């Protein structure tokens, strides 16, 4: 495999896209992660909450892999990714039927090479009975792990999903699902705190094992980077810890940052390398990311504009003071809540404390600011040794933004329309061209070929079967996979 091939392989980011051997080799878990995995394996309903790229899928897949269909396994794990277009577009009985079909298919695949069988028709009651019977035969619990159930662009299905989640849970069946902080709508019939335990995927620099975890990830994913010389003011552990902190503990962003540093031509990795990486991440990763996410947000699309304004205000104020921590008055937070949730979701900010006293009275929430993005707003835009030490030590009092004294006071959120499908589905297929938002996007020539095959929209491309795509001149097995990956990135959060 070429160097480029290796790098591309390193940027496979979704846990579900790895085969088991690669998954095991490349995914590392801290002591806190191990406790989360234990909660996923243990009995009882759990909602795993975390922002995009925080590692929810990896934790869920790891839990499922530890529960094989084997005599010494305490339970049978069933991992099911719900990245399935018909689910996005259906509601009520239809949604339940499709979900049941997916689940039946998944369980049948797991038991297919064993003496056991799983008989159920695609209704909730039948699946419930089938799972209970199977658990009885196996003499062990079944743990259902629903990944990617929460798609914030489409709320109607989520109420249906949580009906299924609650109904299937029993003494023999444990349900687990991944959700996004704040933006997941559970519907009226699901009480999130009574019907499940919510577990946060938190990775902040104050946690024990934070630096060690990110250093392990560098060694596993970028051994060549771990072997490279570091400048005198930096060690591998410093590098991993600081970059991990800079991307607010987000594993996916961390991989992108490491990839950028690994591609750097600097002879040794030092603060200038990191500075360049941070500016590159800001321009070609974070800002494109919010544009990539925008068309998937359904009725929340109009909030992205104000969310960007909020980000600019926070970055300008915190950058001016070179301070990566800010307390924002709760009146502002409650008025602009959805915009803050979107900024958290894309990793621009991360809430560290819900309520903290402010100097001038009142209370606010404390957020950590993404250091990659902050650097661009620091006078001089250079990661100097002083700035590195200052951000590493974090001794400063947080910046405080009060309800009336900042430009946040003038930002207003628009009224929202009723439920809408994510607009990305109706966008022309050209939006998937290679760009900062879609670094592995399609070429102009591919666009032409798709047009010729009457694949004109993102929806058309998603719905095309692999056979249909393979039949297009110029598209072979490799490009079918590329097309499916890029369209999945476009649609799913």
């Amino acid at each position, binding site marked *: 495999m070429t160097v480029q091939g290796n790098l591309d392989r390193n940027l496979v980011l979704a846990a579900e896209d790895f085969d088991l051997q690669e998954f095991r080799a490349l995914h590392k878990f801290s002591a806190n992660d191990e*406790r989360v995995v234990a909660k996923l394996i243990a009995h009882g309903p759990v909602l795993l909450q975390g922002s995009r790229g925080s590692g929810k899928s990896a934790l869920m897949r790891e839990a499922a892999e530890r529960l094989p269909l084997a005599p010494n396994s305490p339970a049978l794990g069933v991992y099911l990714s719900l990245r399935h277009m018909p689910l996005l577009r259906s509601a009520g009985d239809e949604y339940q039927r499709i979900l049941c079909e997916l689940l039946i298919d998944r369980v049948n695949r797991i038991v297919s090479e064993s003496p056991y069988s799983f008989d159920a028709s695609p209704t909730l009651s039948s699946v419930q009975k089938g799972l209970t019977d199977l658990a009885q035969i196996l003499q*062990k*619990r079944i743990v259902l792990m629903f990944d990617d159930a929460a798609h914030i662009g489409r709320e109607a299905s989520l109420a249906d999903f949580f009906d299924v989640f609650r109904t299937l849970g029993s*003494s*023999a069946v444990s349900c687990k699902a991944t959700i996004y902080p704040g933006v997941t709508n559970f519907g009226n019939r699901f009480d999130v705190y009574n019907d499940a335990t919510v577990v946060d995927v938190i990775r902040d620099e104050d*946690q024990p094992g934070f630096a060690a975890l990110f250093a392990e990830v560098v060694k596993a994913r970028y051994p060549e980077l771990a072997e490279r010389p570091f400048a005198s003011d930096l060690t591998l552990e410093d590098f991993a810890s600081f970059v991990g902190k800079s991307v607010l503990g987000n594993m996916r962003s961390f991989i992108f940052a490491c990839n950028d540093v690994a591609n750097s031509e600097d002879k040794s990795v030092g603060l200038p390398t990191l500075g360049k990486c941070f500016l590159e991440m800001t321009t070609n990763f974070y800002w494109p990311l919010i544009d990539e996410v925008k068309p998937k947000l359904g009725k929340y699309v109009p909030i992205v504009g104000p969310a960007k304004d909020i980000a600019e205000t926070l970055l300008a104020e915190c950058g001016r003071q070179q301070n990566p921590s800010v307390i924002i008055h709760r009146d502002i937070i409650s008025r602009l809540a959805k915009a803050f949730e979107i900024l958290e979701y894309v990793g621009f900010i991360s809430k*560290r404390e819900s309520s*903290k006293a402010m100097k001038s009275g009142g209370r606010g929430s404390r957020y950590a600011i993404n250091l990659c993005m902050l650097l661009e707003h620091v006078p001089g835009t250079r990661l100097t040794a002083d700035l590195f030490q200052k951000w590493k030590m974090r001794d400063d009092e947080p910046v405080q933004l009060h309800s009336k004294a900042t430009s946040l006071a003038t930002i207003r959120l628009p009224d929202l329309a009723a439920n809408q499908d994510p607009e990305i589905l109706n966008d022309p297929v050209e939006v998937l061209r290679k760009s900062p938002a879609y670094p592995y996007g399609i070429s102009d020539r591919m666009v032409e070929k798709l047009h010729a095959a009457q694949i004109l929209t993102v929806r058309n491309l998603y719905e095309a079967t692999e056979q249909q795509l393979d039949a297009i001149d110029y598209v072979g097995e490799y490009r079918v996979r590329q097309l499916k990956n890029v369209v999945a990135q476009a649609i799913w959060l």
Partner: protein
Amino acid sequence: MHPLTTLACGNAKTSGAIAEVHSHLANSLDRLLVRARTLKNDGNQVDLALFGPSLGRATIEVALTAILARFDPFRVLAIRKAQLSTDYDAKIRNPLAFNWTSDVKGEDNPKDWASRPGIRDVQRALLCKHFNDLFWEEAFTAMIDAVPYHRGKTWMAKLKRINPEGFVTSMRTNADRIYSELSKGVHHEFVIPMTAQYDAITVVDLLSRSWELVGSLSITSCYSPVIKPLETIDPLDLYEESQEELYS
């Protein structure tokens, strides 16, 4: 003493009936914590299923009684008095005995302050709304303002994401869920083998959640102006040591 015992029970009392109660609760909690940790580290699946839920539930009961006693010694002293009475009959349920619903949860919809509650309407359950309004919200607010950013480890990181107004609701929901799950194991509700549902990892998770619950309530109580401060020791040190010790 285990750091979590000191955190929950406070310093030993030197004299009087409350010293006797404190000593009993602290010694009991200490043994429960040590036994549960040993059970967890031994990892015997059958032992964990049989004994783990009992140890976890007893840990919660004893620790929450101790915390209640620090806020409101009236309740535990009343129980003591009833138990010392010559009419005390071990065969008959003691109407004053510690009770999960009336001493921990409280009623679902207690009378609001604006509704002019009488003394009988004011509840004294540890996690009830009235207790929250009188003690917990103040203590929790004081704590999250006082604890430095880098202190308290994982348990504190989670607590800091809770709003002061939501603290008790969150603790009550959590406590009720853990207690209920542990109780199913204690009462041997299952006629199928216990290990089918209470496998080792589930019991360890329940024990871990029990310790975290006790730790969260204990550390918060230490920031209440009503509670006598710990002598010569920082409660945050105990809180961090508890996590290190229980997860080692």
